[in-house]
Structures are given as structure tokens and as C-alpha cells.
């Protein structure tokens, strides 16, 4: 088969000699997608930037060759290289909001590419822009071409980026985490678009991702990167059904889902080693439970099995010393199947009734209120002791605002929040402080949630000091020690600063900080979305075991349905400030009733290949300042009727716990 890109022996390193990309070789066939999979810090993006010769300062390519469509990329002059970038190869980036120039119209940015690589100007370029935008599925392309990036949603911006990439008619598209910053429904749209474009134009795609689900949907071939090396390379089917390298096996096992509900996830201990820290032996050996002495002494060679499946591991190598039998990794310990709560129905720990958070929109000199952004619009929910309620929805639906309103970080406009029978809304600061210790929050971004200028001990002590808990400072210090034990960090680390920790360790510190005041409810706002899969598994395990030990309740705010399946007892699906469906995890995820829930579930990329029929959601989330009349979901719903556009549906109950706001279902008499 003719390969469009052939990379061999690529080495990229820092000036001090630490190798970021260490001897990588792979090829991409014409019209195929090659996925480069791995955790952050493994050198995936640097590989792509090396190929396009766009490395940042301080990083240099130190060896290797790359042939793109028969042209030696590293032998070109810089002026010729410019014809390659955007011409034969194009790149799209992770953050669509940052990759478009905010002061140029969409059309002008695409026309720039056309003028450079297709020598197309004036009306012809304008026509081509519109055609391209049409091709990437932007509605009303003729109008959009004159708009500015800020007028577009995130998904639209990524489509424009793809249109720009397509403008040069590239043979190779380098997509660096193209959907990581997008919602699951938008991700499904963009992935579909990439597949359609590929089958129409026959271009190849180098897809960089950390998401096994994306690999399962997109890739023909896949390479798994670890610490700068490709450790396994195979076709998609081979990789997913029969992963060889222990790292790949672990990555697959670390994915949370419903089948593992009652046991701990197979987390990979530790984190990716620092650049250039390992020069001898297998780089994964320290985290591998199948490693033996040889793994630390000798760097494993690249072994290709009969079926073309390549792997860099002593388990399969013909090292002559010992070839071990494949030992199935031990099953992770099971959590007790016993529900952590007593069997009698407990009274709700947190009871929220008709909570509303509206932000006024002010205009003019007099700042008159011209409208309301209804971020949270009449939400009611209950969380019993020791249970987990997952709040699911796309970004912008008001999940985080709801979480902060519960903590009274944002004052609610109306409604009531009762914690263990005590009303929290409308309390003054002093009375509220007395209740603060009962409810705490774990934030999304572990890099922004810890003050970089405070040591771990100070961070953990802050809440206790502010709330006047746990007596004197020596008592607090011993509590800090036991908290660090509880979240699995060394006691010595309390004298260190946050920047010395990895993302997963920082999230552990954030959890310990919340636990320091002995709360009964934790509001977890996407606590794992900024983390790698293997680290996500560590954190989920930690949260689950803490629930077992301490009887904590969780409000788990997330958009990741796999995490919901693994962790949640009950699920609420939120759309535009309102809860559209609620029920136990089993009910909502197995028998979704609301079309929105169904669409969300079908958009999740599955790795088992059992792809359900996709329900495509058209368009984007409407603005909460101007919600559509009737059912908010009606404009995007394929089942919508006239009634849906007129009246907001009542809650229909399907069981004592499962209900949805939808006109599709007839009123069920009690």
C-alpha cells in the first residue's frame, strides 16, 4: 500500500539533551487515519510539531527522517516548508477558541489559505470559502463567511478550523486533540465530519488523542505512545481486542463503566516519568505489575508479531533470557456490595427545591435590567446520606452554577436549599459560616484550585482555621497527617508547594482540603476531566473508597457518562438550566426516556465497537438568556411536535424514581 507519510527514527530533544520524542517510526497510508494515543506528557504533540517543523524555542529535532508524499520534510528549505504547511499537510489544534484570529472574519482567514496555497483571490476565493463552510456543515454559510470567530460557538469554530485546513486540499491532516475541548455531542458531530471528509477527499489523518473512544471510532491504525516512545502499534481492531503491551492493557482497563461498579478501577500507579529520566530499561517498568528484573536492565526492542502487531516489551521479545507466560493481572479489589446506607429509606441530606439563579443583563448608562440569564431555572433535587447523585449535561447548561449556588458561593435568586433540615439560603455570613463545614467542593482544574504560594499543610489547614475546627495547631497538624494518609499522599509532602505535584496528586490535595473540615457532602465539579485516564481511575477509586469509609454523599457534576455509570447511584440530566430527566443510574443510562438523554448517550464513543445508532443533535445549546418557548430542547429534537414548541412539558414518572420532562410520553396515571 502506498504510504503518504513515513517517519523513521524521529528524535526530538531539549537543548539539555532530554529526549521528548525518542526514536519514533511509523507510516500512514493514503486515505487512512493513524491515531497516536497516550497520556499527557508522552510527546504526542511534539511528534506532530516536529513533523511540521514548528517546534517551540528550546526544543530541537535531533535525528530521523520524515517523507511526506515523497518529499523529505527535514531536507526542505524553510521557504519550501511553508508550501507544505497548509498545503500538503494541514493542522488543527485542540482549542478552537485560540486558533482563530479574533479580529479577522472567518472568510478572510480561509481566503488567506486559499491565496497562499491555491492562488485563488477575489470572488473565486469568496465562492470557495462558502463552499468549504458548506462542506463542513455550517448552516447559512454565505452569511457566516462575514462573521467573526466570537460570533460562533466552540463546535462551529472547530468546523471553521477544519474548513481552513481543507482549503489547501491537504494530503495529510494533523489533528491534535481536535475534540478534547468540545462537548460530547459536538465531539460526535466533529468526528463524523472528519470521517465524511476523509471518505470524500481521500486524505490521511494523523490523529493525536488521549481518548480511547475516539481511537475506536476514527483510527485505522494506532500507535500507543509512552514517555516519548511508541510502545505498541497495531490496527484498531487488534489494539482494542488484544492489546499486548501492559500499558495499553492498563489504559483499557482503567476506563470506568457500569460493569465495574462494585470494584476498584484498574488504575496505573504513579505517573509518566520525567523527560529523559530513564535511559536504561523499559520506561514503563516502574508502573508495570508484570515487570521483572530484565525490564529494569535492558531496553526492550521493537518486536513485530506475525499479524503485524508491533510492541516494545520484553514479554514478547525473543530475549533468550526468559519469556514469561502472560499472567492475567490480578483483579482489583472489590468494594463491598453492601450499599453503604442502611436499608431503610433515609431522609434526604440535601434537599433543593425550585432553586433559581438568574443573572440580570444590564444595559445603558442607567444599567437598567433588560433581561435575565436563567443559568439555573427551577431545579429540585435530593441527595440522601452516602449516595452519589450525578448531574449530567453539556457545558453551558448551568451545572457548575448550580453547584456553586448550593454552596452559596453564588447567591440564589429564589428557591430553597436545605441541608440536614437547615435552610441555607438567605443566611448572613456568620450563620452561614457555621454551616460551611458540612458541604465542600472539589474543583475541576487541579492547577487552578490550589494557591501556588501556599504549602500543602497551609492549604489543608486553611479551612479548619477559618471555621475554628479541631482545636489547636498540633491537633490540626496530626489531622493534616491523617488526611494525607487518607488520600494516599506521603506525609512528608505537606511541606511542599503545589507546583511540585502532578495533576492527579494535586487533585488528591484538593480532596484532602475539602475533607479537612469533615463535610458530609462533597460537590465534585468535573474533578477528573483535566486528568489522564489512568489518573482519573486513581481519583475515582479514591472517591469511591472515601464514600465507603466515611459515608460521604457526592453531587458529581460531569459530562463524562462513563464516569457516571461507574460512580453514580442516581442521575439528573440537565439542559439549559432545568433538569429534563432523573432516575437511578440504571434507569437513566439503560432506558433513557428523554430524547436529549438518548442523544447524549449515543454520542459517547464506545470502545467495544457495539455502536448504537447515532442520534445526531443539530445545532448548539441555545442561549440561556433567550430560551426557546415551550420545551427548551424542541429546536434540536427530531421528535418535536407543535405541542413541544408551545408548552414546557410536565414531569412524567415512569417508576417511583424515574421521571422525564417530555411530551412524547402520555401522562401515566398514578
Amino acid at each position, binding site marked *: 500500500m502506498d504510504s503518504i507519510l513515513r517517519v523513521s527514527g524521529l528524535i526530538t530533544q*531539549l537543548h539539555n539533551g532530554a529526549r*521528548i520524542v525518542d526514536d519514533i517510526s511509523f507510516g500512514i497510508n493514503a486515505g487512512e487515519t493513524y491515531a497516536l494515543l497516550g497520556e499527557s*506528557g508522552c*510527546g504526542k504533540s*511534539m511528534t506532530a510539531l516536529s513533523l511540521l517543523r514548528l517546534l*517551540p*524555542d*528550546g*526544543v530541537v529535532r535531533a535525528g530521523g527522517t520524515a517523507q511526506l508524499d515523497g518529499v523529505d520534510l527535514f531536507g526542505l528549505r524553510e521557504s519550501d516548508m511553508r508550501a507544505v504547511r497548509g498545503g500538503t499537510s494541514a493542522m488543527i489544534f485542540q482549542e478552537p477558541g485560540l486558533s482563530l484570529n479574533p479580529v479577522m472574519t472567518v472568510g478572510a482567514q480561509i481566503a488567506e489559505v486559499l491565496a497562499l496555497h491555491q492562488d485563488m483571490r477575489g470572488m473565486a476565493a469568496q465562492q470557495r470559502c462558502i463552499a468549504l463552510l458548506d462542506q463542513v456543515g455550517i448552516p447559512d454559510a454565505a452569511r457566516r463567511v462575514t462573521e467573526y470567530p466570537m460570533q460562533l460557538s466552540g463546535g462551529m469554530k472547530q468546523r471553521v478550523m477544519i474548513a481552513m485546513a481543507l482549503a489547501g486540499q491537504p494530503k495529510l491532516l494533523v489533528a491534535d486533540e481536535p475534540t478534547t475541548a468540545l462537548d460530547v455531542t459536538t465531539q460526535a458531530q466533529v468526528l463524523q465530519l472528519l470521517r465524511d471528509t476523509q471518505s470524500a477527499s481521500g486524505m490521511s489523518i494523523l490523529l493525536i488523542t488521549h481518548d480511547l473512544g475516539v481511537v475506536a471510532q476514527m483510527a485505522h491504525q494506532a500507535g500507543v505512545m509512552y514517555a516519548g516512545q511508541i510502545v505498541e502499534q497495531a490496527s484498531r481492531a487488534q489494539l482494542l481486542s488484544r492489546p499486548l503491551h501492559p500499558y495499553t492493557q492498563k489504559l483499557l482497563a482503567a476506563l470506568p463503566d457500569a460493569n465495574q461498579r462494585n470494584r476498584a478501577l484498574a488504575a496505573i500507579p504513579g505517573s509518566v516519568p520525567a*523527560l529523559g529520566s530513564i535511559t536504561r530499561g523499559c520506561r514503563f517498568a516502574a508502573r508495570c505489575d508484570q515487570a521483572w528484573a530484565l525490564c529494569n536492565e535492558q531496553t526492550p526492542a521493537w518486536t513485530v508479531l506475525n499479524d503485524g502487531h508491533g510492541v516494545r516489551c520484553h514479554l514478547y521479545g525473543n530475549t533468550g533470557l526468559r519469556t514469561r507466560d502472560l499472567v492475567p493481572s490480578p483483579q482489583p479489589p472489590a468494594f463491598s456490595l453492601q450499599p453503604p446506607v442502611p436499608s431503610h429509606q433515609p431522609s434526604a441530606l440535601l434537599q433543593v427545591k425550585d432553586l433559581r439563579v438568574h443573572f440580570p443583563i444590564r444595559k445603558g448608562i442607567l444599567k437598567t435590567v433588560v433581561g435575565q440569564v436563567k443559568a439555573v431555572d427551577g431545579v429540585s433535587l435530593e441527595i440522601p446520606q452516602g449516595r452519589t447523585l450525578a448531574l449530567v449535561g453539556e457545558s453551558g447548561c448551568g451545572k457548575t452554577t448550580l453547584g*456553586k449556588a448550593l*454552596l452559596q*458561593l453564588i447567591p440564589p435568586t429564589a428557591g430553597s436549599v436545605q441541608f440536614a433540615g437547615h435552610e441555607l439560603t438567605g443566611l448572613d*455570613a456568620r450563620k*452561614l*459560616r457555621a454551616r*460551611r463545614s458540612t458541604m*465542600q*467542593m472539589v*474543583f*475541576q*482544574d487541579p492547577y*487552578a*484550585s*490550589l*494557591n*501556588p*504560594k*501556599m504549602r500543602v499543610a497551609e492549604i489543608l489547614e*486553611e*479551612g479548619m482555621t*477559618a*471555621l475554628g475546627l479541631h482545636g489547636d495547631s498540633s491537633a490540626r497538624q496530626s489531622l493534616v497527617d491523617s488526611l494525607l494518609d487518607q488520600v494516599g499522599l506521603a506525609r512528608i509532602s505537606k511541606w511542599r*508547594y503545589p*507546583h511540585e505535584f502532578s495533576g492527579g496528586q494535586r487533585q488528591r490535595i*484538593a480532596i484532602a*482540603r*475539602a475533607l479537612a*473540615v469533615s463535610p458530609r457532602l462533597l460537590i465534585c465539579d468535573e474533578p477528573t476531566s483535566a486528568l489522564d485516564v489512568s489518573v482519573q481511575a486513581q481519583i475515582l477509586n479514591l472517591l469511591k473508597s472515601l464514600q465507603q469509609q466515611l459515608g460521604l454523599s457526592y453531587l458529581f457534576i460531569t459530562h463524562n457518562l462513563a464516569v457516571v455509570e461507574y460512580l453514580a447511584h442516581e442521575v439528573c440530566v440537565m439542559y439549559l438550566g432545568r433538569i429534563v430527566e432523573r432516575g437511578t443510574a440504571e434507569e437513566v443510562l439503560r432506558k433513557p426516556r428523554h430524547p436529549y438523554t438518548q442523544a447524549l448517550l449515543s454520542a459517547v464513543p464506545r470502545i467495544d465497537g457495539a455502536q448504537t445508532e447515532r442520534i445526531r443533535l443539530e445545532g448548539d445549546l441555545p442561549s440561556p438568556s433567550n430560551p426557546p418557548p415551550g420545551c427548551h430542547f424542541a429546536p434540536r429534537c427530531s421528535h418535536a411536535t407543535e405541542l413541544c414548541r408551545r408548552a414546557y412539558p410536565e414531569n412524567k414518572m415512569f417508576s417511583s424514581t424515574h421521571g422525564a420532562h417530555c411530551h412524547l410520553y402520555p401522562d401515566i396515571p398514578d
Partner: protein
Amino acid sequence: MSFMPVILWSDALVFLLLAAGISCAWYVRQHEHLLLPWRRVAQNPTAMVSLLVLSLFLLVGLLDTLHYRVLLPENNNGQKVYSPEVLSVFDKLLAPLRTHTEKTYSAPLAMTLYAKESISEANGLVSREYPRLRYGGAHLSDPQQRDGDVLKRGLSGALAGLLAGLLIALSGKRPLARHGWPVRPLLIATLIIFTVIGMTADLAGAYHVLGTDKVGQDVLYLSLKSIRTGLIIGTVTTLVTLPLALLLGIAAGYLRGWVDDVIQYIYTVLSSIPSVLLIAAAVLMMQVTIDTHPQWFDTSASRADLRLVFLCLILGVTSWTGLCRLLRGETLKLREMEYIQAAQAFGVPSLRILTRHILPNVMHIVLISLVMDFSGLVLAEAVLSYVGVGVDPSMISFGTMINAARLEMGRDPVVWWALASAFGFMLALVLAANLFADAVRDAFDPRLNRSAVAA
């Protein structure tokens, strides 16, 4: 005691700043994460050479800050009487330079005055010629010997300086290298500086190296004395700006609402008043007050000093708005950070959030802007003194030197040395401060230091 130590207002403020600086440095040494950017500064050759130059200026300024009054031999009914003249340790060290005043202008290294004068000789004849200086080159009988003497003194002084520099450089080499500091550039800079100092010192013993001014004062002495004024203007002003800008800036950014509105109105109004007018009005008012209350001051130095302190004050009042605006913006960004919200969720009081969470995270901005402002303030003093609303005319400063030299720029032949030395010293000071500030900013800028860890 044969002297009485005098602490002027500005001296007290300098000591205060010094104490604050030392305690800050000590605090930074205890905290690894604070020390980290300074390590980067220490590895930057430009920064360290600038720091070397700056610390020499600082040394001169500090020596010039230790003031005292000499006990006079006569006493008043058994009471000790001190000289009305306030001197500094620096004046004492450079006593020859201070006391060796000529009649009027003389060029650098000259043996005669700059203009011809009528001299009546013993036989009654009046001739017009260049009179010999009282001190400059007075040890030579024949003016022809001057060039050889200058060369000899210059070389011997340079050699002595070079040796002293070498001694210091070699003894400091090993500890420097151990800390990973740039040894070679520092070594070269030390040698050059010591050579220049040695040469100047040896020549200054017999000549006026940079000439004399209108009333015959040594220009080198004037330039060195100006350093203290410049440093005080550059640093004491920050004592005024810093609390205002810090407190108001982070309070406006964090508390928002009406507090933000009020603070914004204040600094918007303040920054739209022409600052030179405001300073002129305030300084003139102060001058009137000083003149009508002579009983407040026992020496003329303390009178001039009060005006200097007041100038710092008024400069501070007009220059805090920039930093305040910067800090407000940064705080607006910080208050949305999740660790602030985590603290709010614990019910941590606002004041504690401001001091524990926001203040430490804006300190790098404060530091950068202070170092950057320093050079601007030194220049501002020169401009204000030139306009006539700066320091007291009796106080030696770059501004008064320039102001005095300005009138002579029009005459022929031109008296260029006073202006040139003020220019040269100011350039060295401000350039060193600017280069150092650049290095500090780079070291504290996370975006510039990320490339090393990018992966």
C-alpha cells in the same frame, strides 16, 4: 563626643527601606518557591553586572546617608556647640574633593581656570592670562609637566585598582561558581570597575577629574553627591505608592461593587490632572510653609531635606495610579481562580483572602513595576528640578546640576563637563536599573520560563 549623629527625615526613610529590603530578602531565602525566580536572575549575566553597578551606586548613597554635625571648638557657656553644617560619612571620605574649591569654572584635569583674568603683577603691570588653579595640579611648577603627570598617575592608579579588583575577584570566584552564577562577566566587570575607580581616585588627589562648576566646586564630587538624591527619589517614593496602589488595587479588584467604582473614580480623576502642575503647586505651597516657619529647622540641610521628602510624597501621590490599575486587573483575574472560591467555601473572611491568597500572587507584578518605576522617577526628579519645582536649590542633585549647566551651554567656548558628567552618571544608574528590571521581569514571567518544561 566630637560629633553628633543627625538623622534627617529622608535618612530615616532610607533606613526603613533598607530594613524592609533585608527582611524581605531573609523571608525569600526561607521560601523555596520565592527563591526560584531570583536564582534565574542570578544566572543572567546582564542582570548580575547591572546589579554590581547598582550596588556601587547604592554604597555611595548609603555612605552619604549617615549624617553628623561636628563639635565646634568654642563653647557657649559650657554648652556644646555643633557646626550648623550637616556632613555625611561620604563627605568625610571625600573631604579633599569637597573643600578644594576653585574660583570658578575649570575644565577636567586642567591646571588653570577656564577664562582669562587680569592679573596685576608685582611691577604694576596688568596682564590677562589663565590663572593657575589653587588645587588642581598645584603640585606641578611647570604646566608642561601636566600630560606626563596625568599619564603616570592614571596608569599607577589603574594598576592599583586592577590589583585590588583581581584580589577581590579571585577571592569571590569560587563561591560564585558554586552557586552557578555567571563568573566570567562578573569578573570582567569587577576588573573594569576597579580599574576606573583606581584611576579616578589617584587623579582626583591632584586634579579636578571632571572639572569645576561656576562656583568652583568639583564636578566629580557633585555627581557623586547627586546619587543619593536620585536613589531617594527613586526608592522613597515607592513607600508612598506601594501601600496606596496595593491596598486600593486589590480591594477594588476583589470586592467589586461600589468600592471598585469609588477607587476607579479616584484614580481616573487623579491621572487626568496634569501631574507636573499638581507637583508644582504642591511643592510651591510647601516652600511657602517652610519659609514662613524657619523655627522648625535647626540646619539648612534639614530644610532642604524636608522639601526632598515632600517631593517624594507628591511624586508618590501622582504615580500610584498605574500600578493600582495593573493590580486591579490582575486581581479581577485571580478572584475567579478556583482556590479563591475554595477559600470562600470555607467561609474565609475577605481580608484574609486578600492577604493570604491574592497578595502573594500579585507580588511579582509589584516587584517588576517597582524596579521599572525606579528609573522613571530618577529621570522625573531631574526634569522637575530643571523646571524649578524639584528639590531645594541648595541640595545637590542631577536636576540642579543640569539646571546650573544649562545657562553655560550658550557661551563660547562651551562649558560641557557639568552637563556631561550629570548625563553620564544618570545614564549609568538608569541603564543599570533598566537592564536589571528587564532581567527581573523575564525571570518572573511564567510564559518565558515555560519552554524549558514544555513537553
